[in-house]
């Protein structure tokens, strides 16, 4: 074991984490990510303490400036006295399982020494794993007392979109130029968005992008909530011009909106349903895989392979046995 946490139980590490020990928080996130019996114990400890944090998802195309903006947002929030954690998610290599997690480069400069907690997380393979690990990590950060948890993901695949959906408030980052907004629309990101950000507003075309987004919003149902489109310059350190304060105000406005009429509860209910569905799928799949290896499972496979039973009959038999 490493670094001063040697020999501590999960409960002891949890206690330290609640006291603000960064190393303990870091360790808890690994436990949450890995799962197993320790993950289960951690889930039990964290669960009664959750529900206070505002979970903000930030997503968009690669290169849109998400890390830069997230770093800036986190630093600005921290400076105003908020207790902020960032979860920066990057893809693992599907071939080797390795990953290069480079988000700290853009965030550290602003946040080192300020108290913002930054954790990089790799997707570690496709499927439900991430959709389970990310909510578990969010619960840990919530339970140990962060009041804002920012989850940054690349909005490309369905999984990333799902992850963004685990937030209370999801912000989509686009950049000036038509392509990006259209791309975002195609990827189904627009429906997901509670908050729109046009980053790189120092570039030409930012106001055109805003107008395009407004047009898209005009075509959607905004009777309950209409996002304001915020222009930001993530690379600008002047709060008077970088638009980050507007973004913070918009995030807060959405949080207030959610708190009205039980919307937050409804959103969390949907999230719970989603997470449960993913986990049920995972759990069933692994039981299925195991059963197919067993004698009776193999018999069903053989019967189907040799044409004795139809695939539908084989499926029915398999489900019966599970």
């Amino acid at each position, binding site marked *: 074991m490493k670094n001063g946490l040697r020999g501590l139980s999960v409960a002891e590490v949890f206690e330290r984490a609640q006291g603000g020990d*960064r*190393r303990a*928080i870091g360790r808890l996130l690994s436990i949450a990510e890995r799962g197993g019996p320790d993950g289960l114990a951690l889930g039990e400890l964290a669960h009664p303490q959750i529900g206070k944090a505002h979970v903000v998802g930030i997503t968009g195309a690669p290169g849109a400036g998400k890390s830069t903006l997230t770093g800036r947002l986190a630093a600005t929030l921290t400076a105003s006295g908020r207790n902020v954690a960032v979860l920066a998610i990057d893809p693992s*290599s599907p071939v080797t399982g390795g*990953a290069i997690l480079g988000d700290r480069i853009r965030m550290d400069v602003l946040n080192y020494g300020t108290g913002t907690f930054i954790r990089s997380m790799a997707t570690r393979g496709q499927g439900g794993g991430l959709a*389970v690990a990310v909510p578990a990590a969010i619960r840990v950060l919530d339970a140990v007392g962060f009041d804002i948890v920012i989850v940054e993901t690349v909005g490309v695949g369905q999984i990333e979109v799902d992850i963004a959906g685990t937030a209370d408030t999801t912000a989509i980052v686009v950049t000036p130029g038509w392509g990006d907004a259209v791309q975002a629309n195609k990827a189904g990101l627009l429906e997901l968005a509670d908050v729109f950000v046009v980053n790189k507003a120092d570039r030409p075309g930012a106001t055109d992008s805003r107008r395009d987004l407004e047009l898209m919003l005009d075509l959607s149902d905004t009777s309950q909530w209409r996002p304001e489109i915020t222009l930001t310059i993530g690379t600008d350190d002047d709060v008077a011009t970088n638009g980050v304060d507007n973004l913070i105000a918009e995030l807060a406005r959405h949080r207030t909106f959610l708190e009205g009429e039980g919307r937050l509860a409804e959103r969390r209910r949907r999230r719970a349903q989603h997470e449960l569905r993913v986990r049920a799928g995972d759990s069933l799949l692994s039981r299925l895989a195991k059963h197919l290896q067993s004698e009776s499972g193999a018999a069903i496979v053989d019967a189907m392979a040799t044409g004795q039973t139809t695939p539908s009959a084989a499926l029915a038999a398999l489900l019966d046995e599970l």
Partner: protein
Amino acid sequence: MSDASDAGATGDEKPFRVVLAKLGLDGHDRGLKVVARMLRDGGLEVIYLGLRQTTEQVIAAVEQEDADAIGISMLNGGHLALSKKMIDALNDADVGVPLIVGGIVPEGDVEKLQELGVAAILGPGSSSEDCVQAVREAVAASA
């Protein structure tokens, strides 16, 4: 129910996590990027801090990222001083994470670095396997 996992339903071994940084004030990160790619290709998770890092920044990253090892590259000629600074900082903070040093280290300094507590030294010609192997051994030895 047989499934007792709270996260990561695969049950795979967790990949090692390595914080990779360059200490000191010099300018380019080509070498560091090559190492990052080699480690990724070897199945490791690399938390890439890049250039001009301080020992304090490295330690903050190691804590928050719960890293298993630290890979440091540094200015030619600065190995002894910077390695000592890093090792001292790790000891002061009670961070028992192994330190691997990369770069051109003169023959005569290898032993000195080892005496300081550097877990492994990787020269410029190191292969992907060398790098991954060095991390695995260093983590195993510190366990």
